[in-house]
């Protein structure tokens, strides 16, 4: 798999040493749903995350995005079980088998190597603790930093996400606005300088201007600190904005992955195409939009063959026979664009070239 990190944006990059920072092979997650029955929420995902890269996982709700993110950090609920191989390459050359971690090592891995920003910032805080206590708790649990060091580090990060430390540190979570809470959460996740940050719907449920400020903050801190990120979003616009690389998930599998421009301008999986055609842009004239018929399949009763075939207008009998593997798109060799569809050669986004003219006074 080849990364397509944009070369035009030089940024501080840490960890990995040429190898992928996080390498996921044949990753599966199943949930126990009753006596002896399970559903597979994530099925055979292969993925490489390179240092400094920003990867977006997109798809409808219920396609396994969040489960995948939780599984990577070993945060699955008790009824969930992850299998496969997840290798994390620390900056110092050591390799870590994430799924084999236990006790102390697991605690070390979490937050220090990889941290997560959860959806719904309110629920991620303890409502009876001030922000200061959250910061201190986190640092004390993972380091031997002194009070002064913790205060300084927290203030530095809060300033980085454009918050006034003096104002925020003594607040309870409910005293902050949604956007401020989300920014505090991002600052907290960066306390221990993780090399990978996983963000689950980081801007959902925020107002437009607040959403924009979070996006800008993420651009900025990533530029500064050079971590890699995987962010999970159902919002394609956000993926276009923040990602270097996009992976589309459907029914627990990655069905297409590629550089952000390839994915948006030359999608080759009917599902990615459908998602793009369903999102209304804001500038320009009234667009021609289409929805994808039907809904995602129940994980307990997946259709045979390609899981998208019942909703796909390109589907033929062959699609019902076998679930196609992820293969490189042959007419664009070497750019890391891969698709799991036997009809990908017929799939094209026929849309006029993007009009860069923003609506001005006319």
């Amino acid at each position: 798999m080849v990364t397509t990190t944009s070369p035009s944006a030089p940024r501080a990059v840490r960890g990995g040493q040429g190898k992928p920072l996080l390498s996921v092979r044949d990753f599966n997650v199943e949930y126990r749903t009753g006596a002896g029955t399970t559903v597979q929420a994530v099925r055979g995902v292969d993925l490489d995350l390179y240092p400094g890269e920003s990867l977006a996982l997109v798809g409808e709700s219920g396609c396994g995005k969040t489960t995948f993110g939780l599984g990577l950090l070993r945060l699955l609920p008790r009824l969930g079980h992850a299998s496969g191989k997840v290798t994390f390459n620390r900056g110092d050359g050591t390799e870590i088998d994430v799924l084999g971690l236990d006790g102390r090592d697991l605690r070390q891995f979490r937050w220090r190597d990889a941290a997560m920003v959860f959806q719904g910032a309110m629920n991620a805080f303890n409502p009876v603790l001030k922000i200061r206590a959250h910061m201190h708790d986190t640092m004390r649990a993972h380091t031997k930093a002194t009070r002064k060091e913790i205060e300084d580090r927290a203030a530095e990060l809060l300033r980085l996400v454009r918050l006034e430390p003096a104002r925020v540190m003594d607040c309870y979570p409910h005293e902050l606005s949604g956007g401020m809470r989300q920014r505090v959460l991002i600052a907290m996740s960066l306390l221990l300088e993780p090399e990978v940050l996983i963000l689950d719907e980081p801007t959902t449920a925020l107002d437009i201007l607040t959403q924009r400020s979070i996006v800008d903050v993420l651009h900025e801190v990533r530029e500064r600190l050079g971590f890699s990120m995987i962010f999970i979003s159902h919002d394609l616009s956000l993926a276009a904005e923040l990602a270097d690389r996009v992976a589309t998930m459907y029914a627990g599998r990655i069905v297409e992955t590629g550089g952000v421009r390839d994915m948006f301008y030359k999608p080759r999986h009917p599902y990615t195409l459908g998602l793009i055609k369903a999102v209304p842009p804001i500038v320009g004239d009234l667009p021609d939009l289409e929805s994808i018929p039907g809904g995602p399949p129940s994980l307990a009763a997946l259709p045979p063959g390609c899981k998208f075939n019942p909703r796909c207008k390109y589907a033929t009998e062959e699609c019902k026979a076998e679930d196609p593997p992820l293969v490189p798109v042959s007419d664009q060799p070497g750019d890391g664009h891969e698709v799991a569809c036997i009809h990908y050669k017929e799939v094209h986004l026929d849309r006029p070239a993007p009009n860069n003219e923003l609506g001005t006074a006319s």
Partner: protein
Amino acid sequence: MSAMETAPAAEGRTPLMTLAGVSQVFDTKAGPIHAVNQVDLSINPGEVLCLVGESGSGKTTAARMAAGLAKPTNGQVDFDGTDIWSMNRRDFSTFRRSVQYVHQDPYASLNPTRTVQQTLTAPLLKHGVVKGGKAAAARAAELLTKVDLTPPENFLTKYPHQLSGGQRQRASVARALTLDPKIIIADESTSMLDVSIRISVLAMLGRLRDDLGVGFLFITHDLAIAKYFGWHGKTAVMYLGRIVEFGPTPKIINAPTHPYTRALIDAIPEPDPDLTKTKGLGSLRSLEIPSLAHLPPGCSFHPRCPLFEGGLCDGVVPELVEIRSGQSAACHVVARDGADVLRPDPPAT
């Protein structure tokens, strides 16, 4: 041709509903909260009026007053030319039947212990629209066809938890249609749906508008959705309880005349990696939304506004004045200098 392109021109018709200078003030311990302040709106038959704004801007409070669910502290709500709060019981009941509400979360607004058929037949029988259970069931099936839940037999016996999000929202639209409404108030009705389903629900609502001539008060925080659904109608942008800009939807989206609308449109990411790079926060002076309990003096947008001029903007509240034909904005600077001040430079890249 999509259903979106066939909206009838509604110019020159008498509005079905008007809100004239309505305000809603909530008394709280922290003092009075002006949730909605001096709002004027009108809805024509078969026309879409989009009400756009961030949370706390008063969209839902305005909609509740339009639906007769809340009585305005000041101002008047007219339906068919009559003040709804001076109507007699019978007229008020007719008004209530003619204006239906579709809520944001269909899981919360549908009764979980009733099947779709029970949900749909209850209002039909209660209001005597049809006589007898058989006729009611037939009508329910017909309504389900209208909202694309076909074949209806598959859905009539289902409980809400057995339906997907999109199907549930369609069922609640079917319920709103039971009493042949003239206006549907859709309050964030598609914001809980997946992107893939949202467009088909909007297309279905667009068809109801065109085929049945239903007027819509369409409330959303998502300007892209307002643009898609309300392209042939009007859009009002609300900020802290007031309408700051009003006009035909394409004008509002492509040539806004209020700095707040401009900021919103510039901030929304695009589903296009190259185009979205031209987006940003611009020169907003602050990200903090003032509290409704302590509104800044003068124009309530002035602490954040890039066009702010001391003495002009923090004195009196600006009136909504026409800037271009059919498009009005409440901004002192734009009213004085014209809308060109909103974009002095070409878009930054």
